[in-house]
């Protein structure tokens, strides 16, 4: 039976949450398409592959010293070896930093169409129709592939995480991994020793809507202090140097789950939402009524933040 193949992602011996979400996705899509779910796992040995087998019935493992650390060349060659040795209909990859780095390379090696950054799949007439965010999350689109096989990447949270409990079979696949053109020297922590906002019960975050660094400091920090919380930021604020990187909430920064998260002048791009959507109560203040942040907030005020925040300060 044709397979829907997850490519597992791991770092420091731990599977990513995204991989468990892909296992759930593979089972759902395979069942709708009359295929079977499977995974491929690459590493220096089969220890992580055995872990993957708790979540999906069939795991193909490529073990090679050259695969000890992730590289796009290594992963693409290993993926190709598994795909060539099996009847693979579709390949599922996480829209993570590693996933973005190698997914299109796998699609090119297969000659397949790729639909990236998906959040949903419907199967119509036996073929998958993918839904994905565009225009900074303001518009969604549906896409299909024109090729027989497909590659799709999924944004974090598109599917629930699959629970462990199975005892799948691990099959070794041999591959010759050669000509790896990038060499990993080290992985460094860029925020070591800095403030940790992830334990705060209340976080007030500011975004691009604050306009400049002085206004960010004048508006966001006093409100955070008055509420007894910490202040945070979306990526553009940190990129512009208005506050330190350790306060960045989102995919490339901190993941936070406070009781109250106030998103002020933040549009709600998926990369930011990934880091705060688990908050108990989300408040959004934004002058753009179509900002995607209003799709995940509990309460929203559509207005100029520079008029609303002083009023909040006065009434607290």
């Amino acid at each position, binding site marked *: 039976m044709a397979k829907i193949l997850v490519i597992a992602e791991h770092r420091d011996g731990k599977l990513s949450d995204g991989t468990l979400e892909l296992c759930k996705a593979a089972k759902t899509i395979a069942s709708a398409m009359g295929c079977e779910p499977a995974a491929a796992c690459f590493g220096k040995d089969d220890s992580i592959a055995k872990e993957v087998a708790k979540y999906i019935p069939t795991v193909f493992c490529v073990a090679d010293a050259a695969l000890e650390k992730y590289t796009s060349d290594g992963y693409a060659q290993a993926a190709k070896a598994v795909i060539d040795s099996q009847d693979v209909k579709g390949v599922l990859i996480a829209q993570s930093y590693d996933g973005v780095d190698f997914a299109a390379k796998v*699609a090119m090696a297969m000659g397949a169409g790729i639909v990236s950054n998906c959040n949903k799949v419907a199967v119509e007439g036996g073929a998958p129709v993918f839904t994905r965010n565009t225009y900074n999350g303001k518009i969604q689109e549906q896409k299909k592939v024109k090729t027989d096989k497909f590659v799709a990447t999924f944004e974090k949270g598109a599917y629930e995480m699959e629970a462990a409990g199975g005892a799948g079979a691990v099959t070794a696949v041999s591959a010759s991994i050669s000509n790896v053109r990038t060499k*990993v020297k080290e992985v460094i922590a860029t925020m070591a020793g800095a403030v940790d906002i992830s334990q705060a019960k209340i976080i007030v975050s500011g975004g691009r809507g604050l306009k400049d660094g002085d206004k960010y400091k004048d508006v966001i920090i006093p409100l955070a202090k008055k509420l007894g919380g910490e202040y945070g930021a979306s990526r553009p604020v940190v990129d512009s140097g208005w506050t330190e990187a350790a306060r960045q909430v989102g995919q490339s920064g901190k993941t936070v789950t406070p009781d109250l998260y106030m998103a002020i002048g933040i549009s709600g791009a998926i990369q930011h939402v990934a880091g705060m959507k688990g908050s108990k109560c989300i408040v959004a203040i934004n002058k*753009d009524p179509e900002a995607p942040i209003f799709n*995940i907030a509990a*309460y*929203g005020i559509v207005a100029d933040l520079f008029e609303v925040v002083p009023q909040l300060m006065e009434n607290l």
Partner: protein
Amino acid sequence: MKIVVCLKQVPDMESNFKIIDGKSIDESQVAFKINDFDNYAVEAALQLKEKNGGEVIIVSAGPDRAAKDIRQAFAMGADWGIQINDPAVQAGDNFVVAQCLQKAIQGIGGVDLVLTGVQAEDDQAAVTGVMLAELLGMPHCTNVVKLDISGANMTVNRELEGGLNEVLEMSAPAVLSIQSGINEPRYPTLPGIMKAKKKQLDAKKASDLGASTDSKTEFVKMFFPVSDKKAEIIKGDPATAAKALIDKLKNEAKVI
């Protein structure tokens, strides 16, 4: 160093978008600008040129309106450019664009480095740069947040989740996708804007480049997201809304 920057013109994401027949956005309602991430790529290229000499070439696929933003990059300091202006490419997918970029770059010849933004703000695909690397037979690195080049040897930091960076060594020629925040993109100067008007911008069609316009994916439709968990919008003037919000946070959500 001969550096190519792949640039895309995109709508301003704060526009009030309207969708026509579920197929396209109403362009008459939006302003266009350089894709944010590509601005950082242009700046990275200009800094490398200032340090090592050479030239910066802009390659962009886009209709007539895109010329304005290619010239914006010229005004920042890029030397010349190629605009792939072809309705068949506009209608194509990332793969079609990657093929056109490949042929244009091969046509330039002797390119040491190709820089792209991490993704386009409009299609949010983040696949074209990696496809381009594969087509050019070059190594690549995505989400680059730091870049040191000495001769053909490069040390690059690739951004990872949760504040981590992977430090990589690789050799030029290569394709790098540049992440926002790596530098501070410059604003064009008035003399820069004057010079930009006279810089060479070659127009090409896919057929001029010998590139196919056959897509591997197909657009079905576009629509505004429907959320089952839309925020309760608190109405009224700022003072009334602020009071009502505080009341709700205290007495309904009980979080302050």
